[in-house]
């Protein structure tokens, strides 16, 4: 017998998979403008936001949606070695395989020779891990407009310092992803559960419960996932020990939300 709580728990595993993407109004309109930007003659698009705001999810979704209609490549892990980076791009975008080293000048020669009807799009996740040198080359490459880059950067308080000049002075677009508002968080939670056919669990999230969750997680998707994973873990434990009658199941009680938050460290106790 698989309990509804166990099924609901698995919904909140921290996995980035485009098929689990939840359509949220704000996110969808950002998504639409990102798709439009890709068509515009902009050189680079920067997607940034705090950890857990859905940047990687966004890139994955974009890749999945567009890969059937246009040439688009996603690199989830930064390629650190310069030569390896060019070789990978050369192979993926132009279908040319190189053995041995490939430097920037050689790669640029290949790029300049190629003519595309539509600019190929390269998605780079975790761009803060690329070296200064390579980032500069990526920028130069974007300037040729033969390849369009969409890069994600995570922003932390520590890194809230003046940006590198090439990020301010180039023609490009910046898109910020933010934490969810309380109402968005409700939609996020309910849609996620309903996707997995957990309708009863979805109904447990009243405005009151969601507000309490939002207060704890600030609407951060990753923190919310963590919290709800533990929450349904707790529910299934109560169920296993036949103590489910002691707690409410028509709406999520604050007690259980707070217990989950304590367990996951979101509340200091």
């Amino acid at each position, binding site marked *: 017998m698989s309990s509804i709580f166990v099924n609901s728990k698995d919904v909140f595993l921290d996995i980035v998979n485009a098929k689990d993407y939840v359509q949220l109004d704000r996110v969808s309109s950002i998504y639409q403008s990102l798709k439009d930007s890709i068509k515009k003659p902009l050189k680079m698009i920067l997607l940034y936001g705090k950890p857990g705001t859905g940047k990687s999810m966004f890139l994955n979704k974009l890749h999945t949606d567009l890969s059937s209609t246009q040439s688009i490549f996603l690199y989830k892990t930064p390629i650190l070695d310069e030569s390896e980076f060019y070789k990978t791009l050369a192979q993926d975008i132009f279908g040319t395989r190189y053995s041995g080293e490939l430097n920037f000048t050689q790669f640029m020669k290949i790029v300049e020779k190629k003519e595309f009807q539509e600019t190929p799009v390269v998605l780079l996740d975790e761009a803060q891990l690329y070296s200064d040198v390579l980032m500069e080359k990526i920028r130069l490459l974007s300037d040729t407009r033969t390849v369009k880059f969409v890069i994600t950067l995570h922003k932390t308080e520590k890194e*809230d310092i003046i940006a590198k000049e090439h990020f301010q002075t180039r023609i490009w677009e910046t898109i910020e992803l933010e934490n969810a508002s309380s109402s968005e968080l409700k939609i996020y939670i309910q849609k996620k559960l309903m996707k997995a056919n957990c309708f009863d669990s979805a109904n447990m999230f009243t405005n009151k419960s969601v507000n309490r969750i939002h207060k704890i997680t600030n609407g951060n998707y990753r923190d919310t996932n963590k919290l709800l994973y533990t929450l349904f873990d707790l529910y299934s434990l109560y169920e296993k020990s036949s103590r489910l009658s002691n707690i409410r199941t028509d709406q999520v009680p604050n007690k259980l939300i707070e217990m989950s938050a304590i367990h996951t460290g979101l509340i200091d106790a």
Partner: protein
Amino acid sequence: MLNLHELEQRWLRYKIKSYLPYLAIVLSVSVIFLSLFVFLREPSTPITKNITPIKAPVISPKPQVILKPKQPQVEKKVLTQKKELPQVQKEIIPSPRSTNKVILSPSLGFMKKMQTDQQPYYKNEHTNENNDVQIKAPTVTVVRDDIQHVEHPKIETVKKISITHKNTHNDIAEIISRFKKNNNPALSLFVAKKYYELGDYRQAYNYALITNQINQDIEVSWIIFTKSLVKLGEKKKAIKTLKQYIHQSHSNSAQILLDEIISGKFK
């Protein structure tokens, strides 16, 4: 593992702790009331008024005659004074502000704030139950070289972004802590690569292994994994692993590496 009982205990302690500030407020409010009451009671004059009539008979030229009817009078007055006491108390409580003693107002404001506590950021957001909630437009900003002045306030934060590059051991530690939070194989692979570059093959091996466990389709991770094995003197194990990987992935780079290991070109 989750322990329901222990967690419930912790929650209880948390709850009690979170009510402590309220308790402190209630306590301090009552202390203030009490001291106010005592303060206002002390200089009260009716007692001295009561005493003067007692003195009067002493001065009086005919003490013997007046003494008898006067004494019950004094007693009466003291009694009435006692009866007035609750009245005095009643008057003080509702009007502490009118006497310009502001001591009470901050705590009252705090209580009010507690009641209407809201998330400051999302005050204007709708809280509809429907899915068709109107949510504010995306914050998209275009930055150009030729435009110094930017209209959108969001740009403030844009300017604040920076790219920090991770090179030293310290920076690796930071990435590891991020990896622990988001379990992103991109990060563990990055750590593996960095350790490999730094010559720490044991750690490179560990992190490549972790990466492979999260996602077994990352070619580079398998390559780092086997390269580290060779460096650690486990050539046989490296060859075996690579062969298995090539069998299921048909990876070219892995094949090249395998040839290099076997021929001794890579060691």
